[in-house]
Each structure stands twice: as structure tokens, then as C-alpha cells.
């Protein structure tokens, strides 16, 4: 067992955010069905009941919309002059969030801003909130912050995203050290791989199904297959042929996935009018079937905060009464603790209930 693999298995990316393809698919389907049942219940219960329920988004629709919004997010991040690692972190946050949440539940437009802003925080880059909000017309700082906690919950508080960028630098350094290839070939491969890594893995599920080094090698094999072979033969020099072939197979799978979204497609996505045209019907559809409770995240956040304040105020009052003579310390505290305990044992999942 390679020590590097053992160390990678400790990461939250492996423990919480790596899925087999079937698992990821079932997760998305479940999220979608849950959201649909929730929203339809809600619509039916509203005061003038929405009688013919709107057409809900299918998981395939959601996947298309998701990519559309991720491109949107990348463009916004580039507009802010963020480093590519932070752009990628933001995109991956967005992607992870919408694994367990549906686009219909939380409005994606607000979440893109929150993801970018929060990725800056997670990667240790200070961006002033006001400055950030001012960059985008029609966005207020409250809107940026409103979904932040929900986002954290959706990410299961795992803020560490392992990217393949540094891995690529390492691989190129190793290749250059070997000295078997001339500089122009290496430089070209380096450039091309970096281009691919900045785009393709973010628009596919590569981060969920492959480790960063596999993603990097997949991209490298698109750019220059010979370099990949050289590196792998070096890395697995002392090991059996089968283990190397297994890795090669995984890398090829990753390559196939990345090839679906090569950076050449970026222009088609980038071309706002074209992509907006194709997305228009979907966006319209989304607008109809949104969760009415969560359209305005700012108001929701405010309501929750007020609710929380009232709750704590009530608690304080009880405490004061009880604590005057220190006689009945037990009762109120016990109630509190009991409630907490009930919630904890009932919750089961440490990261909160399904959304």
C-alpha cells in the first residue's frame, strides 16, 4: 500500500465527497425526488392552491443547468481576478452543494455569489464583502451572506478541496528532471493540461469520481500520452504490471470523462447569447417550479435569525426567574438539555437533516 494513497484517504475530499458513479446518480435522483415532493406539497398547501402542478426539472435538466451556472460562476470569478485555484474551489463548492440540494430548492444565482465569496474565505484570500458586492450590479452584501450557512451545511463543513494544479506542477518538474523530453514539448503539454484542468474537471463529475492526481494524469494524457506513460512507468517501476494497468485504466476513464467537456467548448458556453438561448426554456421551467419559501434567501435568513433571537430571549427569562435563589436551577436547564439531546439523537446525521 502506497503511503501517498493512505495519506490521501485521510482527506475530507475522499471521506465525504468521493462517490462511485452509481451512488452519485442515486443521490441526485433522491435529492430531486425529495425536492419535488416537498415543493408540490408546499404548492398545494398555499392559500390559492396551485392546481396544475408545474413541470418539475428532471435530473438531466438539473445537470445541464448546473453546468450553465458553473460557467456563469467561473466567469464571475474571473471577473473578480481570482486565482484559478479559488475559482475551482468555488465551482466545486457549488457542485457539491447541489448534490444534496436541488436547484429547485435553493436559487442557483444567489448561490454562485455565495460560493465565490466563501471560496475566497476557505482559501485564505481576503476579499472585502462590500467590494465584492459592488462588483456585481444587482447584488447586495446581504444576498451574498444569506446562503452562507446553508452552503456550509451542504458542504458538510468540509472546506478542503484538493486540486490537481499543484500536482501538475509536480509532474512537470519530475518530467523535466528526467530530461527525456525537449522543453518545447513539455511546455506545450504543460500549457494544454493546465487549460484542461481549469475547465473540464469543473464541468464534469471528475472531482467526485477521481483523485486529483488521476484527474491531472487524465488531462495530461489528453495533452500528451507519451508523458503519462513515462511517468507511470517510473512511478510503478517496482510493482506488478497489473497494478499499473489498473491505474492506467482509471486514468483512461477520467480522460474519457474530461474529453466530454474540453476547454474548446468554453467559447460556446462563454458566448452568452447562444447558451442563454438554449438554457432559456430550462430557466423558465425552473422559475415556475421553485420552492416559494426559499426564493428570497435574505428574508428567510432574517426570519430565522429573529426566530433564534426570540428563542434565546425566552430562555434567558426562564433562567433569571429560576436563578434568583438558585433553587430550581435544574428544571430549565434540564429541559434545555433534554431538547438538545432529543434533537441530537433524533438527527442521526451529524451534518443536520436532509434539506
Amino acid at each position: 500500500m502506497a503511503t501517498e494513497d493512505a495519506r490521501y484517504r485521510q482527506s475530507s475530499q475522499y471521506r465525504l465527497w468521493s462517490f462511485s458513479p452509481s451512488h452519485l446518480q442515486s443521490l441526485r435522483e433522491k435529492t430531486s425526488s425529495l425536492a419535488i415532493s416537498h415543493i408540490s406539497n408546499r404548492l398545494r398547501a398555499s392559500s390559492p392552491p396551485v392546481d396544475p402542478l408545474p413541470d418539475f426539472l428532471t435530473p438531466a435538466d438539473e445537470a445541464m443547468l448546473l453546468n450553465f451556472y458553473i460557467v456563469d460562476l467561473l466567469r464571475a470569478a474571473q471577473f473578480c481576478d481570482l486565482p484559478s485555484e479559488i475559482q475551482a474551489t468555488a465551482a466545486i463548492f457549488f457542485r457539491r452543494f447541489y448534490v444534496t440540494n436541488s436547484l429547485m430548492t435553493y436559487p442557483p444565482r444567489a448561490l454562485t455569489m455565495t460560493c465565490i465569496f466563501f471560496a475566497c474565505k476557505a482559501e485564505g484570500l481576503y476579499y472585502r464583502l462590500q467590494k465584492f458586492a459592488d462588483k456585481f450590479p444587482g447584488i447586495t452584501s446581504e444576498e451574498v451572506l444569506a446562503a452562507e450557512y446553508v452552503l456550509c451545511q451542504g458542504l458538510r463543513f468540509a472546506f478542503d478541496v484538493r486540486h490537481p494544479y499543484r500536482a501538475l506542477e509536480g509532474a512537470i518538474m519530475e518530467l523535466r528532471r528526467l530530461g527525456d523530453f525537449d522543453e518545447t514539448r513539455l511546455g506545450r503539454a504543460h500549457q494544454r493540461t493546465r487549460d484542461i484542468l481549469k475547465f473540464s474537471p469543473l464541468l464534469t463529475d471528475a472531482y467526485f469520481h477521481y483523485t486529483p492526481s488521476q484527474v491531472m494524469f487524465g488531462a495530461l494524457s489528453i495533452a500528451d500520452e507519451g508523458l503519462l506513460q513515462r511517468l507511470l512507468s517510473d512511478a510503478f517501476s517496482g510493482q506488478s504490471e497489473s497494478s499499473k494497468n489498473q491505474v492506467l485504466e482509471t486514468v483512461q476513464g477520467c480522460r474519457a470523462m474530461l474529453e466530454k467537456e474540453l476547454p474548446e467548448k468554453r467559447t460556446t458556453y462563454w458566448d452568452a447569447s447562444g447558451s442563454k438561448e438554449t438554457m432559456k426554456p430550462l430557466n423558465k421551467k425552473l422559475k415556475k417550479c421553485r420552492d416559494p419559501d426559499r426564493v428570497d434567501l435574505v428574508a428567510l435568513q432574517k426570519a430565522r435569525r429573529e426566530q433564534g433571537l426570540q428563542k434565546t430571549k425566552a430562555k434567558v427569562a426562564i433562567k433569571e426567574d429560576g436563578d434568583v435563589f438558585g433553587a430550581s436551577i435544574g428544571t430549565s436547564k434540564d429541559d434545555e438539555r433534554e431538547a438538545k439531546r432529543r434533537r441530537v439523537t433524533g438527527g442521526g446525521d451529524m451534518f443536520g437533516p436532509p434539506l
Partner: protein
Amino acid sequence: MSRKPVTGGSTVVKLPTGPTTALPSDICPVCKRVRYLNTDMEFLINPECYHPMCSNCVNNIFKSGPAQCPYATCIKTLRHRGFRSAFFGDLAVEREVDIRRRVAAAYNMVEDDFETLRDYNNYLQDVEDLNFDLISGGDEERRAAEQKLLHREQEFREEIERNKRRGREAELTRQKRDAADAEATRQRRLEEQREEARARAEEGTINAEVMEALARGEAGSAAEIQTRIVAQNRARVAAISGAHFPSLVDTAARNISNTLSIRGLKTKKISDEEEDLSKPYDPFAGLGPALEPSRYKLRDAYPNTWLEPAKTNDDHRVPGYSISEYVARAMFDAFAGLGVNIADEKKDVARGPGTAMAADAAATNRVTGRMDVDDVF
């Protein structure tokens, strides 16, 4: 008058038999004179028989030539020359020391003469046995030991002489070394004193200058004048206090070779516990091999034009940017998790807690009521 010898001629005496072996303090056992009347009375012994008597008796009896010991039953013939005052109050100790001195003179080998430490220890044991026999053995043992000692003294005279000479030489060199050490220490102390005196004198001149300046009524407050003059002379003061520093360091270095030359210290055996402590501190507590890369070998340097500026650029250098750290991370990233097959390894976690809960919630339709999703706990 003369008594017959009871035992054969012995070179090592038995102690006088009596109630005590202590030197008398007041009354001479021979002439019964009392110290009260003779304040300068002194008791002498002869290492032939260790019978104490006052100096008056010694003069009276032995002045005219050798005579028998005045003690009853003692048959030793003593000479005036052999008398001396006892060093120890207890004559048994006096005798033991004499015997030991004689034995040590005969058996004067040192450790270097032996092949192994064990041989030397055996030799020491034998010598000590001989000592014991002579000092407190029975008649038979004492006689045998005496024979041995005499034999040694006669047969090995040359060797003994040689050893003695050698010992003297070693003693001489040791004394010389000690003297040199003492001299060096004295010199160092003197130099320190001289430097101190010079520094003090310099300080005095500076203070005088300050006073003069104050008396002249220069511009500025007294404190200002003082700081100015001190600053002017600071270089001089620093030169003085620094000047004797190298010489100090020099002599210290020279002395170390002399004073710290304690020879013969055996290398100590270190117990397991101490051995653990003596190892360098390992932050990974022995986990080191588990962190060693297996797919690549981390080199000291990789050709990378991007990293070149970081080596010389102050923006990177001064805050402590470590290129090797970056290289280690990059290489680790490049090969970490290469053998992880997520599709296989995550197959059996398809029903993780999150999904199970979601399924439950969907079944019971409980989600609609849960507004406070923020409340994790």
C-alpha cells in the same frame, strides 16, 4: 638483661599487646614521668616494635648505641636513628600505613602494565590479600606473606626501580601540567583585570569630558550633552570591551585542551530509557517511514524556471517561503491517491447516513415541517 627471641627474625612487627594501642598522652610508660612536670614531653616510636616512649627515655637509652627495647617481653634491638614521632594517634593505624607503604613500594605496577583490566584487578586483589595478611593475619599467614614480600623485594629489585622511576616521571609531568594550568588561569584573570581597569579609565575620561562640557556651558540640557559625548565615544568603548574578547576566547580555547583532559574515563553504558532521550526529537514519533513517498523519490532540486525568482526575490525569501516545502507538496500531490479506485472503494457506502436519512424523511414526509434547518444541534 637480654631476652631470648620468641619468634624467628621477622621484618614485620606484631603490635605491642596491651589494653590499648593508643599513644599515651600523659605518662611515659617507660620512665613514668608525667607531662604535668615536663610540658614539652614528646612520645616517640620506633617502627621496629611501635612501643611508645618519651624523647627523654630515647635519649637516655639509645644515645650510646643500639639497645634492647625497654618494654618487658620485647626483644627488639632498637637504634636511636629509627625513632620518630607517630603521625597517627592510633598506633595500629600507624603500623598499617607503614606496612601498606612498604607493600606499595614493592608492588608498584600500574594498569598500563597489564593486558586486560581483569588481570590488573586480579593483581590488585592479590596485593590487598597480602596487605591483609601482613596487617591482621595470624602468625602463619603473616609469615607466608612476609616471605612473599621479601622475595618480591629482592628478586624484582630492578623492575621495582624501573616502575618507581616511571611513576616519578609521570608525577613530574602531572605537576608541570598543573603548574601550567594554574599559570594560564592566573594570566587570564590578570588580563581580565587589566581590561576592566582600562574600560573603567575610559569611562572616567568620558565622564570628565561630559563634566567639562557642562562646565563650558554648551548648548542643550545636561542629559543631551551627556548622551552626545557618550555616543561620540561609543565606538572607542566598544572597541575596548571587544578588544580583549578575542584574546579571551583564544585562551579559553587553548585551556580547554589542557584542563579538560581527564583521562581514563570509561565510556558509560547507556540504558534503554536514556538512549531514547538521547535520540533527536522526532515530531512524527516514529511515523517517519509511513510518510516516506513510495512512488517517487524526493530530490533536493528540480529544474523549474518558475521557482528561480523565489530563491533570490526578497518578497519570497524574507517571509520564509520554502521552495523545498513547495516541491515536496507538488510531488506529493502529483502521486497521492493515484492508486485509489473510488468507484470500487466507495461502492459499499452507497447507503451512507445522509442518504438513509433522506430516504426516511421522504417516506415520512417530515421535511416540510422542518424550517429550522440551520439548527444543526
